[in-house]
């Protein structure tokens, strides 16, 4: 496969950045998108040019480190997969592919396609944890959780924190991410002690980072590589309302 790439190049956080055209020759359809970029980078390095900076780590869709907006879609055109799981067979010979970073004020650019997503870490620090008591492990059957609820909590906990929801949102809102984290704890007994504070604190941290406001368009759900549902956003709205209005804490 021979492809034309238009890649966002930006020397640093304060550089304006622009799309630069590269030609990718002899690309195997079995390569992942990141492997294709590796090959392009090898060519650039051999020519003495600066390699394209992009994030990746596990390359098997579980770490949430890879990003990229490919032809206007975070993680590319496939549903329910991360960029590292996107294979070149999805594209056709001769295609032009536009590659951009995740764009949001709260995700400041680092270089080229790499952006700083530590805003998510700060939101997690604000409330994405549970108290763990010291002492012996409790008896496993002491806390009964229905299968249905456990599944919902697990579905929310599948969020890998990649930020595709923010990248896909027309308002760069982080609601799906925060909602998934609030939900995974709110659904389980372990998350109850901090339940009220968590909803308030994580919302506060989210607002402080400069993310946009959710307008319920659900582009996030469609873009999520882990298919996190927007029903979590409703739960977060509920948790936050309850915490704001009803809680005496």
């Amino acid at each position, binding site marked *: 496969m021979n492809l034309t790439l*238009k890649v*966002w190049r930006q020397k640093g956080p304060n550089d304006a*950045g622009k*799309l630069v055209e590269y030609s990718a020759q002899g690309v195997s359809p079995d390569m992942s998108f990141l492997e294709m970029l590796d090959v392009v980078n090898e060519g650039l390095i051999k020519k003495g040019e600066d390699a394209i900076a992009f994030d990746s780590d596990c390359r098997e869709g579980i770490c949430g480190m890879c990003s990229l*907006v490919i*032809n*206007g*879609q975070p993680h590319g*055109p496939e*549903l329910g997969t991360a960029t590292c799981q996107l294979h070149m067979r999805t594209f056709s010979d001769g295609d032009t592919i*536009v590659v*951009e970073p995740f*764009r*949001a*004020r*709260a995700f400041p650019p680092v270089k080229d396609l790499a952006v700083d997503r530590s805003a998510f870490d700060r939101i997690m620090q604000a409330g994405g944890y549970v108290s763990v008591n010291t002492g012996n492990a409790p008896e496993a059957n002491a806390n009964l959780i229905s299968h249905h609820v456990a599944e919902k909590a697990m579905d929310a906990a599948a969020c890998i924190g990649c930020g595709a929801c923010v990248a*896909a949102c*027309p*308002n*760069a*809102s982080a609601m799906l991410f925060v909602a998934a984290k609030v939900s995974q704890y709110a659904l389980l007994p372990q998350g109850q002690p901090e339940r009220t*504070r968590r909803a*308030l*604190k994580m*919302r*506060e941290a*989210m*607002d402080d980072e*400069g*993310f*946009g*406001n*959710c*307008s*319920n*368009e*659900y*582009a*996030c*759900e*469609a*873009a999520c590589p882990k298919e996190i549902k*927007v*029903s979590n*956003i*409703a*739960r*977060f*709205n*509920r*948790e*936050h*309302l309850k915490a*704001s*209005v009803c809680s005496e*804490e």
Partner: protein
Amino acid sequence: MTEGKCASKCRLTSFMTSSLGKKFTVGAAGFLLGGFLVVHLAGNLFLFVGEGAFNHYAETLSNNPLLPAAEIALAALFLAHIVFALKVRFENAKARPVAYEVYEAKGGRTIGSKSMAVSGVLVLAFLIIHLKTFRFGDDKDGLYKLVMEWFKNPFYSGFYVLALAGLGLHLSHGFQSGFQTFGLNHPRYTPLIKKAGLVFAALIFLGFASMPIYFGFLRAP
């Protein structure tokens, strides 16, 4: 245990200035305005009954001593809906300072959801013109005659129908969006709520648009 900013600040202020609280206000005001639309439409349909019935309705309404209070409350709802929606909108514009060269949603977005700002501004423009012509218009010969006079103007009636299409589009997203913002989402009912929102939007559009279309275009000499 109470600690931190959340507890020290007044809860209500904190809620109202939060991203979720602002949206809640937009949604709550929007829902009440939706209720007003239903009542307004029901009253307007007296146009089809005849001049006497419509004028009697209009006079009874304007002679009601509670009307000024209701109008102030209604204006406050509009103001809350518009001000908070604008605030949310401006914040959203700031949240992505560098736009994508190519942007294509994989799903979720609808024509209604994409055009909320445009349809909102259209409805606001309509509202201002509508108030000027009918609420504060010269109806010494009865409101019926004034309405008929304006509907005979094809530009006015055309704009009226266009703006109502904008209102329908606005409601097609706003109805279901409100439920989600209030935290009401359920695998069984949410698909129904979405359908009900589309039906409500269509009924409001058809109900209000039927009047300028019938009196302005179909029945006009």
